């Protein structure tokens, strides 16, 4: 009973979010609930607002109206979130960027350990052990000492996912995760994400990839011109 209650719990509540850049309306009142344990694929043509809604959930993009609540942390439209709110939000939400955005001067292992050690005061040895565990889970532990420029696209993505998960957020946002992957790697990524679902994580993936979404997503939300047209 408890498990069913938890599984049906709304973890991300997006309510009438409007976002303008100058005169251009990017999000025109997006409303959508995401429940714990879902893998939601946000789809739509270029410029429909997929990436922007992810960035808004991650607290990277101020929006003018509406409300986003993530596991009890609320961002209000038109208000500047406090430092404390953002700090709390970032414990709840991890993000993997389309181009991975690994820190170029640090090795894969150091990329993963940076935030736990400096932002979340985890003991460096414990952070390192956890980082190795994540790298092993994703099959890239042998690349722990490689610099980002020495990694392949698939390896860099796995390191980026490991980095986001190192601070243990319940929600993981991913922007176009299949953009640089061949079909074999895409299937591997799908399996990896399903593994995360089994750990009760909630995944929100912005993608163009219809086939990937159909095969792996538990739910598809379609955007066009900044509004949800299909859920």
């Amino acid at each position, binding site marked *: 009973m408890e498990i069913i209650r938890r599984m049906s719990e709304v973890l991300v509540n997006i309510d009438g979010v409007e976002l303008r850049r100058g005169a251009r309306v990017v999000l025109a009142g997006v409303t959508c609930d995401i429940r714990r344990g879902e893998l939601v694929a946000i789809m739509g043509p270029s410029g429909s607002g997929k990436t922007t809604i992810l960035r808004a959930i*991650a*607290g*990277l993009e101020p929006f003018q109206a509406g409300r986003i609540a993530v596991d009890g942390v609320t961002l209000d439209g038109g208000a500047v979130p406090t*430092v404390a709110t*953002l*700090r709390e939000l*970032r*414990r709840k*939400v*991890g*993000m993997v*960027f389309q*181009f991975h*955005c*690994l*820190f*170029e*001067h640090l090795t894969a292992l150091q990329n993963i350990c*940076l*935030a736990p050690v*400096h*932002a*979340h005061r985890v003991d460096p040895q414990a952070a390192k052990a956890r980082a190795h565990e994540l790298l092993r889970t994703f099959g890239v532990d042998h690349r722990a000492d490689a*610099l980002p*420029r020495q990694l392949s696209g698939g390896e860099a993505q796995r390191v*980026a996912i490991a*980095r*986001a998960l190192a*601070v243990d957020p319940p929600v993981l946002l991913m922007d176009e995760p299949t953009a640089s992957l061949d079909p074999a790697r895409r299937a591997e990524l799908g399996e990896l994400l399903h593994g995360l679902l089994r750990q009760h994580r909630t995944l929100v993936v912005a993608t163009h990839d219809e086939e990937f979404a159909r095969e792996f997503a538990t739910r598809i939300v379609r955007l066009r011109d900044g509004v949800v047209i299909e859920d």
Partner: protein
Amino acid sequence: MYDAYVRGVYDAASLSAAEPPKIFRWAGDPEGGAPFVEADPSRPDEVVGFDVEIADLLARNLGRTPQFVNITFTSIDQSIARGDADIGMSGLEDTPARRTTLAVTMAYYEFREVLSVRDADASRLRTLADLRGKRVATLGGTIAYEILLRAERDHGIRAVSYEDDVHPYSDLVIGRVDAVLLDNVLAERRQRTMQGFTIQPQTVAIGHYVGVLAPGNGPLRDTINEILRSAMRDGTLQRIFTKWRVWNDDQPKLYARLLAGEPVEPVTGLDTSVSVATMTKWEAARRYFPSLLRASLVTIVLSCLSMALAVAIGVMIATGRVYGARPVRAALLGYVELMRGTPILLQLFVLYYGLAAAIRLPAFAAALLGLALNYAAYESEIYRAALEAIPPGQLEAARTLGLSERQVLRLVRGPQAFRLALAPMTNDFVALLKDSSLVSVLTVLELTKETQIFATNLGSWVLPGSLCAALYLAMSLPLAALARRLERRWKSSAA
């Protein structure tokens, strides 16, 4: 007889033999040049002074029109040797070096090297021997400077070299130095406009003012000597020196000896038998090399400290310009443009002399700060560009991981920007190493200044210039090599 002289002069000067020169070009330095040569206070583009009047006298007797050529005091000898003017006259002292390397006229004025001290010290600081451990100022490249260098060894004083003869006295009065050794002419002239110091009555040495001509210009020099003799006999020189309030009992005695054909030693009171001008070039180089090495040490220490400070200030400016609020950004931009848009020499003068009434910085500290403040502006632009070159995606990734803005700068943006900035920074350090030569205007005796003193005393720039260049290269080449190595390393690892 006179015609023969004049003809000889024209031939020797390699001027047109058919067309006698109409212009008599004479060189002097009007900076602090009273009563020798100074800009006329009522008409600043004209010069006045006793050397001006003597030049007029010479030109008149040569049947030519005098034309003044403005040349820095310490460069007059070299400038005359290369033919920029016919004669140099700016209170130039008769020295063995000048006699060896140039055609020197007969003496036309005898002066005394005298010590000046603050009024409060007048009863206890009377001679060089009383000045142990004290800072004693003078004009660089003069007999007085030679005397002070000897006194460094003999009496343990500390010689401080200035580029002009006004700031030694102003720095004496405000306490930056404890005594000044200079000609009585300069000391007395300065005392008329400045309070607070006493000229000691004892004479430290006796010297003479002469005119200097290019070594091949002997015939013109001889003609000029004839004109000077005649001016000594008929009282013309006396009238000129009386007008400028420097006539005294020493002059008639000097003129009597000269007119009687007696030899006059260039300097009395300083043993000039070991002058570098009379040594072989190699012997001179051997003697000067240790002081050049010491000066190199000043250059490298000053450059390293200035660069370290410039980097620290530059990082703060760059951070302020990238992260600061609008007024902070505007103020920092203003600072950068002010420092880049005005000459560093002007900044050094303002810092050391201009602000002396408010902050009395020691010379080395002012030099260090001046170079650092100027270079900080350039460094900040390098760091700003480097900070802005870090992909914004990395910064956002760092923020989503929960790092604070300060942590993003310290752990993600700063370290990567530093790598980008390191190669241009090394280039700037090499530039600073060379710009450090400018601080000699603040009496800091660094490599270029020491070389200039060596060259002045030797009467040639070839050997001192080569040694100086070799020392600068010995300091800058390793830096250039380091810059290249870093660039190569990052280029290959980025590939």
